[in-house]
């Protein structure tokens, strides 16, 4: 019921070149106090595709990700310059609450709220007033858990605390929580870095399913993960966007020697 209108217009099966941008950034500079963390980044994020941001630690990939839903607003010393558009609209013209309802986020460490599994997923719909009664909340919670591939595992324990789940389940719970708000874009900040390989594989499968409906931007330190889940990859180094292109091209035929050095493991 919720996302049918977007899935019917899905660009998931089109090539990256034919796909319009969901998010486009132009000339993004980010400063932490006097220190500049991002230099003039231009990046387009295609609809219904997975865009991976890779690069060595401290290259600014998470910083860029957090610009898209303005999470950097919370950091007092952080200043963001440049133009970031969501569907052609400047994200700074939107109210930050509205922006974050449209651009969901999944964090590095699974961070379920200290509430029940049900309440975790119901949190977003409740604060945004997306459901007017208990039945509607339940419907959203079940749909979201289903989409996050978690429903089978937790159907009988919805009133147990979210933190009682395993790490991988917690992360899928966080994904379900993000989906429940019905966002257009989901940002994922190294979502698998705290998980074991089996849980990671499960999340990667899920990401591939989710891109039918959502546009996904994922930050990862694992090049294999970027190669597996993304259609488009951007390589950042020391705050600069070095290279962006189709994932296949980046990994098989990088144009920049820094990219080549990174993906062949010479630094990073």
């Amino acid at each position, binding site marked *: 019921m919720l996302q049918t209108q977007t899935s019917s217009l899905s660009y998931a099966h089109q090539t990256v070149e034919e796909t319009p941008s969901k998010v486009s950034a132009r000339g993004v500079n980010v400063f932490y106090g006097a220190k500049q963390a991002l230099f003039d980044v231009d990046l387009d994020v295609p609809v219904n595709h997975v865009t991976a941001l890779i690069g060595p630690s401290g290259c600014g990939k998470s910083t860029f990700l957090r610009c898209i*839903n303005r*999470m950097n607003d*919370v950091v*007092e010393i952080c200043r963001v310059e440049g133009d970031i558009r969501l569907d052609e609209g400047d994200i700074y013209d939107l109210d930050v*609450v*509205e*922006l*974050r*309802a449209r651009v*969901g*986020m*999944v*964090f590095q*460490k699974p*961070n*379920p*709220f*200290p*509430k029940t599994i049900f309440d975790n997923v119901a*949190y*977003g719909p409740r*604060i*945004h007033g997306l459901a007017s009664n208990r039945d509607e909340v339940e419907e959203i919670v079940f749909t979201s858990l289903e989409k996050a591939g978690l429903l089978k595992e937790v159907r009988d324990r919805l009133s147990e*605390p*979210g*933190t*009682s789940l395993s790490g991988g389940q917690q992360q899928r719970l*966080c994904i379900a*929580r*993000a989906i429940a*708000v019905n966002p257009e874009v989901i940002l994922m900040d190294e979502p698998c870095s705290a998980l074991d390989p089996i849980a990671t594989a499960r999340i990667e499968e899920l990401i591939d399913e989710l891109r039918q409906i959502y546009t996904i931007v994922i930050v990862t330190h694992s090049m294999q993960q970027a190669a597996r889940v993304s259609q488009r990859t951007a390589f950042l180094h020391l705050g600069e966007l070095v290279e962006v292109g189709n994932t296949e091209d980046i990994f098989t035929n990088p144009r920049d020697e820094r990219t080549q050095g990174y993906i062949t493991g010479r630094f990073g």
Partner: protein
Amino acid sequence: MTDSTPTIPSRSDTTQTVRNGLRRRYAAERRFKIYGVAAIGVALLMLAIMFGTIIGNGWSAFRQTYVQMDVLVDAAEIDPDGNRDPKVLSRGDYEGLIKAALREMFPDVKKRKEKRELYDLVSSGAAFDLRDEVMADPSLVGQTVSVTVHASDDVDMYMKGYISAEVAEDERRVSDKQIARIESLREQGRISTGFNLRFFTGGDSREPELAGIAGAALGSLWTMLAVLVMAFPMGVMAAIYLEEFAPKNRWTDIIEVNINNLAAVPSIVFGLLGLAVFLNFFGMPRSAPLVGGLVLALMTLPTIIIAGRAALTAVPPSIREGALGLGASRMQMVAGNVLPLAMPGMLTGAIIGMARALGETAPLLMIGMVAFIVDLPKGPLDAATVLPVQIFLWADSPERAFVERTSAATIVLLVFLILMNLGAVLLRKKFERRW
């Protein structure tokens, strides 16, 4: 590792050095443990001595000596009209009846001085004991009633063994003749000891045997309620604003420094502030628990704010980010995610602040809560005193019987404190549902 590098000690040398040092290291560890155990032992010993002294001294105040008397309730004295009108009954000369009954019991007493000594055997409250019985049952008028009345504090002290007959007569408050009469009463089985109900139900009194702690306990209760109602919400809201909403600039820095300094201001200063602002400027009633509560709330606020901020800072940032990332407004994040996690810590701060406020005397002296008040306070605007002030007042009284009452009041204060903390701990447990 090899002989070619003599600067690095050989493996066996290293092992030997480590081995040689082991004894010294373990000895240091043992010494440290002994110091720790000794420190805790001393603390526990002092605590035991304190509780031992207070309870040992105060326990006897929970029991009281009573004298059983046969009093002729003379209708001519208290109900001359014979219509049992409660108004007339309540104004009767019951003291005269008690005195007459005493003379009846000891017909040999003739001299004025001896009479006075005889009357001093029972409390001046005995007349009220009798009146209460007659008022409750007017049919007693005209009959000889057996009433049990409070013995005077001196008799009570003698019966409890605090006054010894071996001491020279002029050095004790009970004369030889009085002792003889007490003994004769005891032989007749007229003297009994029972639970001192009056201590728990009465207000303050000049007569130790009539003095009770209920007035001060109620005063403390009203004051603490006023503190809780004002300081807790204000402190929590101030902590939330400063921690979650206020911009970090010079002004908030100044405010923070001032709050930290306020926590260390001597409490009497808050009393002076209360006197100047609440009493003199706003004209609030003197000796009222509401004003005491206001003063103590001001004193408690910094503690609650500081503890509240610490509790808010301790909430993991991932919880905040999770909520904000879903599009929660700041208020929604604070109310729905941060506050529930910070609540136990905030309650702890409130407990510490309230416990300090409960034991506070100095600021309350300034706003008149040190007055001698007999009536029980029925609300936060009635004149009242509080437990620590009551202890201070009794400790200052010369009568021997107030010594045990001082300790007994301290026991009540400690019980009050324990109950308050227990309530707070239970509340904290309720909020502390760690998942």
